[in-house]
């Protein structure tokens, strides 16, 4: 795979919990991410889905080293040279920041209210000294124009803008350093639906024009389906399934994916929904269940699920899954959208 841009291997992020008593040390760990491996090819979009608390955001941020990974390798390919990002010092890492950026979920808290839009977008250029003088302004205007921001508003402060516009500012900041890889961390979920579509289309246009590679983290499956080439499903800090979007949506191999797909709301209100009900809450990542982590809620659970950890296998071409019965179960995917058109 020569055109792999980023590969993560057995990534682990554990957060220590200190005990409450005065002299207590670290007794437990929240295993937010516990052994995740995948690769992303140049120019593709990998969707990453999962419910709240499954560790999606932590994966995205630990790739960028906004959170320090506990273990694992993150190899990043720049100009045909590969670097292990997890081994770099903070200072060395700063040199890589221009190649990788993050688009935040919350367009309100991610922009410093005390800086003008121009200064916000220019931050990566100035902080890494990528440009000086007039070139800064030129590149800021270029990035703002690409994100369809009115250039007259660059002097303004973020509080003058609505959520969608603020998200465009965030995107302009992410692409001003001309990165190769962008993590979109729930980047549209704080916006309303019509704005979501605008932002998604903007992201896709930018990808078509500049060949960006996205890791698109979301919990909204239809959004992920719209933008991603391949999708990975996370459950309790681990990947349960990874496949090309269509395969994953219409022919899931993991019971958890099936449950997720059955929960996609129908466009047609008359269509009856029969979501697969999962009992209970997502278990605590402090004491994850033994064996297959999903066995406590899986409708197809068997005895060996409680003791044996399922292997991460490629059961079809490019279709990875971690389930003992991936080959035997027949699972139902999402409804084909054609049925809606027929109505």
């Amino acid at each position, binding site marked *: 795979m020569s055109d792999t841009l980023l590969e993560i291997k057995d990534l682990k992020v554990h957060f220590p919990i200190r005990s409450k008593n005065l002299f207590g040390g670290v007794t437990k760990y929240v295993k937010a991410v516990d052994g995740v491996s995948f690769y992303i090819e140049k120019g593709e979009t990998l969707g990453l889905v999962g419910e709240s608390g499954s560790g999606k955001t932590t994966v995205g941020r630990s790739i960028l080293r906004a959170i320090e990974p506990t273990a694992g390798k993150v190899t990043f390919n720049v100009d045909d040279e590969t670097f292990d990002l997890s081994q770099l010092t903070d200072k060395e890492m700063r040199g890589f920041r221009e190649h990788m950026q993050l688009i935040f979920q919350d367009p309100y808290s*991610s922009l*410093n209210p005390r800086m003008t839009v121009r200064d916000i977008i220019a931050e990566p250029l100035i902080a890494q000294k990528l440009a000086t003088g007039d070139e800064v302004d030129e590149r800021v205007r*270029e990035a703002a*124009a690409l994100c369809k*921001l*009115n250039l*007259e508003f660059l002097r303004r402060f973020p509080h003058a803008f609505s959520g969608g516009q603020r998200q465009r500012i965030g995107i302009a900041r992410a692409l001003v350093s001309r990165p190769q890889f962008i993590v979109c961390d729930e980047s549209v979920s704080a916006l309303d639906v019509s704005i979501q579509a605008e932002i998604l289309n903007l992201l896709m246009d930018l990808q078509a024009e500049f060949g960006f590679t996205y890791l698109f983290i979301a919990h909204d499956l239809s959004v992920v389906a719209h933008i991603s080439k391949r999708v990975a499903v996370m459950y309790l800090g681990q990947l349960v399934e990874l496949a090309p979007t269509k395969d994953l949506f219409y022919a899931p191999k993991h019971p958890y994916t099936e449950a997720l797909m059955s929960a996609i709301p129908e466009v047609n209100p008359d269509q009856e929904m029969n979501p697969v009900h999962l009992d209970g809450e997502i278990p605590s990542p402090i004491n994850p269940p033994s064996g297959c982590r999903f066995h406590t809620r899986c409708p197809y659970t068997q005895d060996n699920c409680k003791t044996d950890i399922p292997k991460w296998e490629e059961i079809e071409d490019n279709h990875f899954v971690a389930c003992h019965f991936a080959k035997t179960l027949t699972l139902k995917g999402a409804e084909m959208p054609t049925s809606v058109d027929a109505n």
Partner: protein
Amino acid sequence: MTPTDLSPKETQAPINQMESEEAQRYYSATQFQLIWWRFRKHRLAQVGAIILITMAVIGLFAEFFGPYTGTTRVSDAVLVRPQAPQFCNDDGCTLRPFIPGVISERNPETLRMETKIDPSVRRDIYFFVEGEEYKLLGKFKTNIHFFGLKEGSIHLFGTDSLGRDIFSRVLLATRTSLSIGIFGVVIAFVLALVIGGVAGYFGGGLDYAIQRLTEIVRVIPVIPLYMGLAAAFPKEWSSTQVYFAMTLVLALVGWPTLARRIRGKLLSLRGEDYVIAANLAGAGPSRIIGRHLLPAFMSYIIVDLVISFPFMLLSETALSFVGLGLRPPTVSWGVLLQDAQTVRAIEQAPWLFIPAIFVVVAVLSFTVLGDGLRDAADPYQVSG
């Protein structure tokens, strides 16, 4: 990325173009402009600010505004009542203010010196008159006072039992008390900023150790601590040494609260998305602190400082009042109030309490100013 045509027409205008000029101004206002606009709506706080600025100016030029130095004794004017300037007497009115003359005589029954007003004598008040020599701001030798008499003496707030002019002394005390408050707050603030800043920015074990230390300082009862520290001042120290020692004492007691607030603010700011964004943009620690963290809590710091002033003022006054703080010949509000401790003072010379009015006014002014600043401080908060 290829350069694109950047003419504004080509780009969509996401904001409604029909905006009033006021909105335009609001949208491109800096933080301090916004704070200022909001502060201007707070009338009471402005009054407080004006009073404090006046006090500061008067205190700075105390020798100029007061007709006498703090230690001048007028032996025939002991415990003179406050004298209000007049424009009229039995002979008619004039534009020049004056005070009636004062006769000092011994009461034949009580054998006490008493002062009486002699309405037949008229002593005109002149402005920018020559009087006692002093050094303005400690440098420029001059003898011009803002007002004074050509003969006799004027005591707007009366005199004390030694015949010293209380008005002049109150002005000098204003300087001492305000400056001790300022130094106290500044030292406490620097301590708090360093200690709280280190704890908040680096976190971890260092934070833990600093927090325990702060707790220890905070649980020490304040009055015994003051007393112990003040009692430790050697008697032979000069008044200047005692003055600086006092500022240190106040600061050493005052820093933990401020340090905790700075730490808390830093901790919460460190996790803010925009700080993470700056980190991901490749900004180093100095840029993150200077560009993102400091501006974000500057407004809180200013408010905190203003609010901690009254505490310093009151501590100084209280300590000096009970004789643990500054000592004569230094004059501060607390030192002046020492004279008003006796029953005799309350009965015979209630004007010795006038410095207390200054304490109350100053503390109230700081409080309303702090209140107004706090309301104005965070212009990005959605306010009702």
